[in-house]
């Protein structure tokens, strides 16, 4: 009887936690620790630990196309191994060979402002650039090159980028018209730093 009661209690706790947990796990790019999840969801860490395991089991039992995996001390959603061939086919299908306008613009900012942080790029473009930067990194057009004083990663263009534009070195990029006498100062204002 008391075991049943306890079960019911955990059940409802889990049901309350589950959707919020799923929402977070859907958007995180890096595995997220149980500690962080507990903080954000304002739940005891023990409940979280139980919930993620239960959710991972659920995904497996329901034969979902994705799975919840514990990697490097945190949790993240990955493609389930047996369905990887479909993803591979999708990727190979070549729907994504062309860069979007947003990606090209971001690439242009990196090219002319390198080394540069994401915060600064977002400031210049007026929109968050995280997603686009991921694409550029994945496509090997930009790369990390250390960090600035504030601890933000710095990015620069890669040799592949030069190759794509048919340039020998970054110095061969044509100077852009003097739009502003002091663009850096303006960037600073816009980036708010």
């Amino acid at each position, binding site marked *: 009887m008391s075991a049943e009661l306890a079960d019911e209690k955990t059940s409802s706790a889990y049901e309350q936690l589950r959707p919020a947990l799923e*929402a977070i796990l*859907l*958007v*995180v*790019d890096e595995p997220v620790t149980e500690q962080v999840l507990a903080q954000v969801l304002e739940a005891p860490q023990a409940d979280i630990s139980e919930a993620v395991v239960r959710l991972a089991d659920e995904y497996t039992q329901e034969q979902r196309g994705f799975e919840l995996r514990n990697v490097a001390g945190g949790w993240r959603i*990955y*493609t389930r191994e047996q369905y*990887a061939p479909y*993803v*591979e086919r999708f*990727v*190979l299908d*070549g729907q*994504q*060979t*062309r*860069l979007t306008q947003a990606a*090209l*613009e*971001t690439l*242009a*900012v990196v*090219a*002319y*402002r390198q080394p540069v942080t994401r915060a600064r790029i977002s400031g*210049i*473009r*007026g929109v968050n650039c995280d*997603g686009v930067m*991921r694409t550029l*990194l*994945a*496509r*090997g*057009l930009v790369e990390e090159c250390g960090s600035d004083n504030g601890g933000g990663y710095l990015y620069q263009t890669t040799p592949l980028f030069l190759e*794509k*534009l*048919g*340039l020998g070195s970054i110095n061969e*990029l*044509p100077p*852009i*018209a003097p*739009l*502003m006498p002091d*663009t850096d100062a*303006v*960037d600073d*204002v*816009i980036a708010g730093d």
Partner: protein
Amino acid sequence: MHGSNSQVSYGQHVTTEAALEPTSTPEETNPHRRASFQVRLTNFEGPFDLLLQLIHQHKLDVTEVALHQVTDDFIAHIRELGSTWDLDQATEFLLIAATLLDLKAVRLLPSAEVEDEEDLALLEARDLLFARLLQYRAYKQIARLVAEKIAAAGRRYPRDVSMEPRFTELMPEVLLGIGLDRFVLLAERALTPRQPPTVSIDHIHASKVSVREHAAILRDRLTRNGNSTFRALCSDCENTLEVVARFLALLELYREGVLGFEQVEALGELHVRWVGGDSDEPIEIDEYSGSPVTDDEESTL
């Protein structure tokens, strides 16, 4: 029968408070109407907007127009402002006042018998105004819906995480899809700072312009080309002030009888025709206050 049905539903639309109330603010319950006039006028969007607000404020049924009240308020408000009003507000006022007076004039006509062509034209104008007002109100309501949808969609976040490395490795080689020329253009555009939304204070230290000078420019161009459009005549203006100067100069030239205007539809292209012949006799152009002072004028000031 069908006609009377649609009449009923239409009447409900217009008189229902909620339907006319897209911009309800706490000030609306303020019994001191005139004081709140000022508040509302600082943020309304064009004459239709204000008209809608006024109609709501006075709980007016558009078909039972008691607009004389609104008109009186208006005139009183303008008087109160005395000499302190600015050009922007004044022109908006005039536009709305004209619209209201138009409505009022129509209202005063005996509605049973319409014989005069002019009466008919006035009635048609009123129909048109009602239709446009209702149309505007519909879009205003839709705008609210658009805002709600944007807000809701903004709270749903798409899955947008990096692809697992084993998949990215498979990706076909990326295509930039553009050459160096286009890339540089893109960079220029991307690096041109966006104007952060600010309250402009440019007018405080705006450079002064001379209506007389701009009249000379216009005269020169129009005698050469015969006719043009206001848009074309202002295409080289560097700021709003210069556009205003050109416009005032056009009015001055019109007063001198050397110009003709034609505008087919409201807010449409304004065509300007030169009718002053090609004599180069000097034309008297009034200068406006705030014009730059030239050397020969200085002594007289």
